[in-house]
């Protein structure tokens, strides 16, 4: 007997199909896939940080396919300019007037590949669009499409020729996940299986945009009881008072935790958040907002973030 009402109702089937299809393409990464989908349902942007070749781009592409979203990929390079992202007005000789050519950001799912290769100015053009969900070019504000979801990938910051994202801009990503190498069995299947890119082409959308928007609305209705808020506060208080971190979690981080946990609860087919949901999303949501004491600026240690959960009692 479960007193928590299933929340997915009519959406249950497509979600399950979605998860199943995704796991068939990206092998052995069940947790990360669910987090990525949860991030999308929570209307947050996603940062994937890992070495090249572990499937970052594939995951982003897969999400677009599964939700039936328009997809644009921007490869960030050091000479990329803000206008290359937002678009620019170009003089049309025939009509004798300026005409706006929207940039790749005008798209439902934007993959910003290797975002830390571009200069801070270009990065901030994208990050502002993420925050405002609109773009202002030449004094005119243009609204971005709905839904609008950015998946940015970056290589670990220690590499030469990169501009690590500043802390304030990292905050704009709801989650940061790492893919890591697949385990031995999954890698075996991967090496034996078909080319992933071709598999992507065969993927059919599991739901349409209207369904996605409905699900996003459902996320906001997931119930959060007082004990759960207490738990989030206890976690934040711990990071603020502990010696392990330079600065603690901000109130915005607390809100992000609850938003992500709601989406996670929905994926678990529950209409209320339980402490395990907070725990499930804690590392991806909190890690990039926590700066370990004594670490170099910009270093974020998932192990240390996970240890917070070990040290805070569930109320």
């Amino acid at each position: 007997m479960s007193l928590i009402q299933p929340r997915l109702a009519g959406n249950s089937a497509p979600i399950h199909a979605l998860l199943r299809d995704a796991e068939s393409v990206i092998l052995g990464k069940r947790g990360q896939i669910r987090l990525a989908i949860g991030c999308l349902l929570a209307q947050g942007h996603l940062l994937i940080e890992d070495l090249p070749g572990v499937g970052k781009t594939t995951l982003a592409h897969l999400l677009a396919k599964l939700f039936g979203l328009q997809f644009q990929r921007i490869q960030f390079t050091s000479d990329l300019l803000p206008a290359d992202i937002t678009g620019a007005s170009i003089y049309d000789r025939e009509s004798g007037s300026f005409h706006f050519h929207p940039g790749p950001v005008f798209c439902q799912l934007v993959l910003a590949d290797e975002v830390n290769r571009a200069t801070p100015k270009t990065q901030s053009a994208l990050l502002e669009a993420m925050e405002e969900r609109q773009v202002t070019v030449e004094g005119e504000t243009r609204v971005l499409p709905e839904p609008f979801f950015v998946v940015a990938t970056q290589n670990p910051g220690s590499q030469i020729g990169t501009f690590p994202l500043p802390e304030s801009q990292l905050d704009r990503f709801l989650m940061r996940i790492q893919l890591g190498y697949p385990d031995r069995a999954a890698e075996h299947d991967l090496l034996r299986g078909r080319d992933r890119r071709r598999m992507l082409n065969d993927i059919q959308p599991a739901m349409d945009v209207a369904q996605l928007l409905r699900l996003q609305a459902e996320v906001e209705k997931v119930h959060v009881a007082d004990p759960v808020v207490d738990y989030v506060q206890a976690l934040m208080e711990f990071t603020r008072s502990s010696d392990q971190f330079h600065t603690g979690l901000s109130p915005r981080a607390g809100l992000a935790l609850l938003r992500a946990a709601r989406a996670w609860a929905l994926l678990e087919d529950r209409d209320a958040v339980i402490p395990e949901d907070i725990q499930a999303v804690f590392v991806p949501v909190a890690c990039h907002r926590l700066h370990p004491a004594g670490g170099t600026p910009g270093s974020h240690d998932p192990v240390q973030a996970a240890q917070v959960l070990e040290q805070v009692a569930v109320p």
Partner: protein
Amino acid sequence: MSSGPIQSMLPHRVLLALLVTLGAVTAPHVLHLPPWMTPLIIVCAAWRYQAGSRGWRLPNRWVLLLLTLVTAGGVVMHYGTFLGRDAGVAMLSLMLGLKLLEMRTRRDTQVVLYLGYFLVVTQFLYSQSLLIAGWMLVTVWALTALLITVNRRTTPSGWFPHSRLAATMVAQALPLMIILFILFPRVPGPLWGMPDDDARGVTGLGDSMTMGEISQLSQSAEVAFRVEFDGPPPAPPQRYWRGPVLPAYDGRSWRQPDDRGAFRPPLEPLGGEIGYSVTLEPHNRSWIFTLDMPVQISTQVTVGSEYQVERRNPVRERIRYDARSALNYRLDPELRDVDPAPYLHVPENRHPRTRELVRDWRGRSDNDDELIERALQHFRDQPFVYTLHPPRLQDDNVDEFLFNTRRGFCEHFAGAFAAMMRIAGIPSRVVTGYQGGEINPTGNYMIVRQSDAHAWVEIWQEDAGWRRVDPTAWVAPERIELGLDGAVPESDQLPAMARRTQSWTRQLALRWDAVNAYWDRWVLAYGPGLQQRLMDSLGLGQWQRMLSALAVAMLVCTGLLALLILWRQPARRPDPAQRAWERFCRRMETTGLPRRPQEGPRDYARRVATARPDLEQDVEGITSHYIALRYGREPHESELQSLHQRVGRFRPRRA
């Protein structure tokens, strides 16, 4: 080190609050620090402020070392020592200033704050006034708020974060402070007895009188002592507060004799007895002041041959004593055991004109009384002027004063009159002390100030004994009736508090004096003697008992505070569902599978199910029931009942 970590450690506002607080802590010391130190500390603070706000570099270790050595050397040069109160406080202030220049980490900031607490305490070495105590309380509060801010790692908000919490903490410490104040065993004498330091800057009467000295003292409105009378105070002409008696005369100044007789001359009280208590300000001499003539004194004193009342030790702290005096008396009418010669001594070659004048009077007088009358009449009839600013006297001061300048203060009249009496063959001596006193209507006690300092004469006559004669009263009767303010011309400079006008500032100052008098009486006068008396009356006379009482009182006080805090905590009743869950967890503990505190209910249920498949069904049921009740939307009362029943029925066997 770059400025980055400095800024992030101490936000701009906190740094500013810290520097302002430290300024407030140091401010009362500024007057006794070496003059170069205050600018140095200000420069250090300004430098640290610029480092925080503009990213200036702090000096490196070698510069700091050099600066420390040079300035510490400066302190030693200034005081000649590291030790003692003044040098110690100067070193402490200096180190606080320099520490600001290496305040980089949180620990440095804590060190600075602790130094600040120490510096606060040292203020008691200089002053224990109510104002300073209040100021110290405020600075302690500010330091505490800063200490909380620095130790809490959250970014503070507002201009003075955690000030409420700090105020609560200081308020909670107050009862402990009172208990320690009353019960902590007190050591006689100042704990930090540094006599050299105390000797400086204390005003009061000296052990000799040269013309011109008391008029200088009269410029001070400082309080000499305060008196509370048991009954109505005596009339102004009887308010003679006897201090040092000066019988030795060298033709220029009056002194105390080198060898003072230890015997006490016979005093015969003739009524008019009056009881009073005196709170005497420290004046660094051993004599204490009583109304003419004391018959009974509560404190340990000796009364010498001149009837001068002295303590064994100089008065270095405020003391309080009760006394009774007889306003009418006869002192030593037979002069039996004393050689009268010293009381008649005037150096041979001094005061020729005065001698001539006295000889003339003697020739025209039948007896001593008439001669005395003539001498006093002389002061009244000749154009003598009573003034705070008498002209300087050069050579033979008595002759010059009596025949040329004729402008003088009480010591001129007393000195000249005593000299005349000696020339006439009447034993005489100068008595210094205070004359008068002002009744403070708030608190109804008398304030005697340095400006009330006075000198008069005692002459000895057969049968009458030593008799008080005040020549000033003949020149300026207003001095005796109305005090100094009524007697000196308007043009003479007098401190505001010595003027008895009815201005509101004066009224306010008198009120404030009354508050201070209470503070002195009830707080500062609580020394070893008073403590012993109080403890005796409480049956805690032995120090072991006092310490046990102290321990018990501290325990009770902290216990009560703890209870109060517990009671004031928002009483969050545990959720009924949570209580059932906790009961379930306790039962699970007996099976050897306790829930870890950081484990969510679902994870726990899964772990139990893996370890004990036999319990899976029950645990799963209870857990999802609990989750729904605690985390779900508005659960129904009956569902809570059924959870309780389920947990009640749940009796897991040991594995």
